[in-house]
């Protein structure tokens, strides 16, 4: 036993301590427990991984039976690790630790009682860590689902952290409900898996999946995988369920970095990669995954180009990058997907944290149009953001370049069309990320606040992440993952590499042209392509469409048809109708029972006489 349970247990402990007693703690104590617990967890991960290596197969620890019913169903509270898990664990705890540290600085000056809910923030964050680690460590689908739902919950709580703001709580609910729709698919997938395999343990399921030589069960597996993909789409913000993620930026920036960029949203990718043995038997499902990923990547990228809120830009960028990861999974390059998960975690966390630093410096300003020229005022932030932007644009040998390259190569191997679309998307990505960078740091300052550089607790994590963004690609994840996920498709073609790098550079150049060299150009384009621009600026009116097609009809229908119509009208109508009829009949009969006792007596007497008469006539008197 390697006491895997301690990994999630530390953050849980932190959550409990801060959650219950945090109100009475000083900020320092809260920070100590919060950061300490995650750090401990990180250290325990490192220690455990080193102890268990080489991790080529799933190492499982059974703690207790969680749910059992008869002999058929027995789901344990089991944790397991393998190489796939190890990557995720390191990313989650590592990035998590950094972001925790960052957050102690970022959240230090919140207004409101109890330091603006400082303890509450950190307890939520710790709880998130707990669930995320459960998700990653789970040895069966149901436990994975626990983490899955749990991180969704924490996401909900943290998005709605500023609960006084209506938009924040709305965004929280939106996130939770959209996730629920994904979970709907996931849970159905779980039911199918159980029906098919009689178990939910990864080991047993995958073992049987490998043995399914015939095509008899293919339909089931395809259905299962598609349902799993629904779940993944919900959690990882894929089309058509991506709508919650941009709204989720209502949460504090460290949350955006940790949950909505680095870790939680990649859970879908992790889940698909984890289910690779199943997906491998469902080519149709894989095709669907790839298409959805690509579609998401393109769509989010286009929207990202028009957004003015710095966090929104990065949010769409996240959606887009997640699309890439699914593309990777869809084409069978799971390890590339996970590779990108990791590098994306580095640079996207950095982007968000940097954005947070900017916002922090500008006292809450998020609109790019009110920034500019901050290069000299907050140089450390600028430098780190520059690193991140280079990475995401795919500048050679940065981490982003390495992983995106893997994906594009794999896509090309699968279908050249996908490759080309991917390349265009990469170009767009470079464009909007650099657009944000230029708008923020170059030109003339357009705001009114007094920018100042952030303290060391903020800049230190930025520095670490900047380093990782540039050099993180040298952790050769696909190689490490080979025993678990198989070899990625070969075919390393230098031409493809050059094309993708060029695409990135073109994007950067265009951004420079539009926003530094000729600042009037964007408006010209916007006016020229007014219809298209409006469509994209308004995110293709997807939210509005959902609202009009689904939400309103359901709510109004529930109110008017179901409640007022059926409940009150039909059922109660019938019941009350029966009541009225009884009353009516009673009203006629009641004249007989007017409450005058003497009338009763007279009638009784009459009855007695009649009985006597009857007896007399029938001869009773003889």
């Amino acid at each position, binding site marked *: 036993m390697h006491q895997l349970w301690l990994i999630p247990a530390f953050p849980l402990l932190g959550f409990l301590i801060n959650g219950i007693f945090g109100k009475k703690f000083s900020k320092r104590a809260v920070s100590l427990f919060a950061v300490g617990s995650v750090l401990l967890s990180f250290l325990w991960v490192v220690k455990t991984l080193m102890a268990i290596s080489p991790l080529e197969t799933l190492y499982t620890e059974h703690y207790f039976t969680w749910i059992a019913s008869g002999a058929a169903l027995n789901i344990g509270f089991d944790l397991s690790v393998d190489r796939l898990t190890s990557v995720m664990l390191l990313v989650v705890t590592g990035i998590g630790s950094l972001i925790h540290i960052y957050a102690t600085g970022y959240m230090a000056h919140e207004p409101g009682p109890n330091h603006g809910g400082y303890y509450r923030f950190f307890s939520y964050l710790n709880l998130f860590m707990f669930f995320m680690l459960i998700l990653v460590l789970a040895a069966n689908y149901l436990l994975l689902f626990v983490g899955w739902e749990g991180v969704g919950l924490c996401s909900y709580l943290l998005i709605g952290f500023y609960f006084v703001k209506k938009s924040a709580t709305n965004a929280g609910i939106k996130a939770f409900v959209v996730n629920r729709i994904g979970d709907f698919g996931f849970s159905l997938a779980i039911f199918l898996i159980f029906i098919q395999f009689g178990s939910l343990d990864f080991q047993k399921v995958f073992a049987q999946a490998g043995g399914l030589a015939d095509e008899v069960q293919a339909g089931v597996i395809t259905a299962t995988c598609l349902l799993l993909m629904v779940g993944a789409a919900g959690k990882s913000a894929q089309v058509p369920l991506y709508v919650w993620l941009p709204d989720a930026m209502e949460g504090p920036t460290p949350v955006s970095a940790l949950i909505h960029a680095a870790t939680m949203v990649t859970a879908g990718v992790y889940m698909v990669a984890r289910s690779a043995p199943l997906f491998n038997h469902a080519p149709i499902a894989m095709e669907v995954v790839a298409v959805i990923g690509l579609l998401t990547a393109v769509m989010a990228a286009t929207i990202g180009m028009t957004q003015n809120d710095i966090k929104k830009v990065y949010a769409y960028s996240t959606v887009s990058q997640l699309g890439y990861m699914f593309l990777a999974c869809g084409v069978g390059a799971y390890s590339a997907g996970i590779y990108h998960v990791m590098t994306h975690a580095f640079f996207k966390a950095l982007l968000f944290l940097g954005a947070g630093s900017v916002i922090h410096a500008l006292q809450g300003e998020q609109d790019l149009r009110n920034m500019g020229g901050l290069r000299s005022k907050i140089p450390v932030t600028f430098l780190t953001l520059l690193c991140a932007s280079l990475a995401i644009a795919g500048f050679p040998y940065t981490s982003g370049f390495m992983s995106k390259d893997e994906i594009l190569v794999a896509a090309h191997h699968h279908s050249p069309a996908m490759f080309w679309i991917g390349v265009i998307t990469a170009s767009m990505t470079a464009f909007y990320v650099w657009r944000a960078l230029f708008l923020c740091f170059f030109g003339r300052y357009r705001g009114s606040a007094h920018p100042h550089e952030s303290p060391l607790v903020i800049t230190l994590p930025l520095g670490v992440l900047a380093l990782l963004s540039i050099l993180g690609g040298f952790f050769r994840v696909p190689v490490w993952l080979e025993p678990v996920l198989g070899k990625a498709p070969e075919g390393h073609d230098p031409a493809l590499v050059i094309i993708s790098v060029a695409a990135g550079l073109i994007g950067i150049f265009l951004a420079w042209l539009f926003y530094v060299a000729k600042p009037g150009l964007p408006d010209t384009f916007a006016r020229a392509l007014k219809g298209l621009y409006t469509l994209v600026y308004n995110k293709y009116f997807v939210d509005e469409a959902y609202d009009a097609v689904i939400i309103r009809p359901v709510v109004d229908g529930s109110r008017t048809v179901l409640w007022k119509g059926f409940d009150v009208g039909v059922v109660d109508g019938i019941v009350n109708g029966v009541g009225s009829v009884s009353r009516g009949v009673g009203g006629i009969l009641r004249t007989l029972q007017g409450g*005058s006792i*003497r*009338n009763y*007596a*007279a009638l009784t*007497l*009459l009855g*007695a*006489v009649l009985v*006597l*008469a009857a007896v*007399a006539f029938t001869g009773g*008197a*003889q």
Partner: protein
Amino acid sequence: MPSIPLDAILFLVLAAIAVGSAINLVVQTHPINSALSLVGVMISLAVLYLLLGGEFIAAVQVIVYAGAIMVLFVFVIMLLNAGAERPRTRLSFSVAAGVPVLLAFLSAAAYFILKKVPPAEGVTFGGFTGGSPRAVGEALFTRYLLPFEVTSILILIAIIGAIVLAMKEID
């Protein structure tokens, strides 16, 4: 000396008193008159019981009925200072239907009694001595012990109920 049909005379006299009192009960408008008439009925009935050999029942009739229950009635009448009924303003259903039906009932009852009861049998004073206190007591405390105890509980409940009802404050 020709034997005087003392039993018959007594019966007729008492029956006359009883029926007369009963009629008086019905026709009087003032409750106190009715109450006293009822006492009259009861006492004459008590004597009739005596003739029928019910010594104990006769005494109890006077003590309980005339002496306790009717006193209670008189009390309530006095307490409420109940006046005479107001004259009837309209003929109610019960009156209209009641009187003919009553007559029908009485004739039906009489018809049955005369049909079913053999006229030969007669009542003479001393013809039955099973109604002495001793006989009644023995029956009450052996065969009828349970009903007897039950009625005593009934009485207890009635007393408590009456007290609770009557003690209710007017507010």
